[in-house]
């Protein structure tokens, strides 16, 4: 329990160093662009594959479970859209990114720690916390909401493709369904969540990487811990935000 509080304290101390006014904006800007490319663009393929297949599967499952003449045909499209916008795109994709980006960030920063690169930065007058972590956080705050929108679109397209050839469903019903009772607030809600998750996905692995002690083995452990902790925290925040925003 004490180490938990110590960790939380150290995490916020790190954040306070991360958000110190940078003394070299050009350097930070360059790093942010670099991170957006490496973390953001690098995730597009994975998210596309997962979204399309999940959209297809959700559609098939809903269709087979609701194969009842009393239920309107558009319900399947509606259900796919709602589940993607509210939960699958923001939360599940963030959990997946927490695994992909989290382990990447933790091992990158952890390697820099144990090979003295962080010390070298400090000697050269760089606030290493700000230089390494701030661009990652900013980059993810920008690209994760974009990825979430992108995932929503691809998930719905996945369902649409299935609806064209799946027995007992028509394309028209599906399109009617995805347009039925659409509330803009659902998108806003998803984006608010994704901003919180974006912050968690990069800041927590940065923390575990930054304070690695020892060798390569500890870097592996730090990566694992980052993924576990950021996933748990994403789930908790998801619950709290849903309570606050939807209820």
């Amino acid at each position, binding site marked *: 329990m004490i180490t938990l509080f110590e960790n939380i304290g150290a995490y916020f101390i790190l954040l306070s160093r991360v958000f110190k006014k940078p003394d070299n904006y050009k350097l930070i800007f360059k790093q942010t662009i670099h991170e957006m490319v490496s973390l953001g663009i690098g995730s597009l393929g994975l998210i596309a594959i997962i979204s399309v297949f999940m959209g297809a599967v959700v559609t098939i499952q809903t269709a087979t479970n609701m194969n009842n003449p009393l239920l309107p045909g558009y319900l399947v499209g509606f259900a796919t859209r709602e589940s993607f916008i509210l939960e699958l795109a923001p939360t599940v994709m963030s959990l997946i990114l927490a695994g992909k980006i989290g382990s990447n960030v933790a091992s990158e920063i952890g390697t820099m720690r144990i090979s003295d690169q962080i010390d*070298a930065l400090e000697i*050269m007058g760089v606030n290493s916390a700000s230089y390494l972590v701030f661009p990652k956080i900013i980059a993810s705050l920008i690209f994760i909401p974009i990825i979430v929108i992108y995932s929503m679109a691809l998930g719905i397209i996945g369902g649409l493709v299935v609806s064209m050839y799946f027995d007992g469903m028509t394309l028209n019903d599906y399109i009617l369904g995805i347009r039925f009772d659409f509330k803009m607030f659902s998108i806003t809600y998803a984006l608010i969540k994704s901003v919180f998750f974006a912050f968690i996905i990069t800041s927590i692995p940065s923390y575990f990487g930054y304070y690695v002690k020892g060798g390569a083995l500890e870097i592996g452990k730090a990566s694992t811990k980052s993924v576990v902790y950021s996933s748990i925290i994403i789930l908790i925040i998801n619950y709290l935000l849903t309570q606050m925003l939807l209820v």
Partner: protein
Amino acid sequence: MIEVKNLYKSFGDNHVLQDISVSFEPGKINLIIGGSGSGKSVLTKCMVGLHEIDSGSILYDGKEFTTMNFKQKKKIRKDIGMLFQASALFDSLTVEENVLFPLEMYTKQTKKEMLERVNFCLDRVNLENANKLYPAELSGGMKKRVGIARAIALNPKYLFCDEPNSGLDPFTGIVIDQLIQEITKEYNMTTIVITHDMNSVMETGENIMFLYQGKNWWQGDNHEIVKADNKELSEFVFASKIMKQFRNA
């Protein structure tokens, strides 16, 4: 001049440095020798503020370093060049960008001037045509040399080198020793070199400190070290057959 006074440093129960007092003079090669794990790297990291010390003081040209804030420390660090034991090159940057980094951080030169300086430094460590390579593409000895080029890029007032010639062939090792000696004299640097290389000790040691059991066990120059009447030091320096022959000759 850097003075260390009554410095203590421990990691938990591991009392690495105990009551270290020593001064390092400008224009001289100051060597730190001692067994593996005796605290040489920790001592230099304490001196530049990478480790918090438990107690004691560290003076840069008379100014107390330990109580400075980040900004004041940064001003001192601008004058510090440091070669780390494991080189600590930035993995994501090329050789050229690595040496460029401190110049971009601390100077307002034009890109062309900076690149000239980069090439000059790489030349001095006998590294040509490696500008565009990444650290992962270099041998251990090449990394060391890039690390040295980066450390001297800003013409530092204080130069720290943690085992500059370990992992180098004898010829390149001597080239590096001579380079360090030359720039130390030329710019009147305060140079502190950690070494295991007895050749360097005998050739360049003007002020040698022997760390043993966390203490400043012995201090003197390369002439005194041969005659020194100190059991632990003699065991350390004359461990090899060839050094024993050298002493008896």
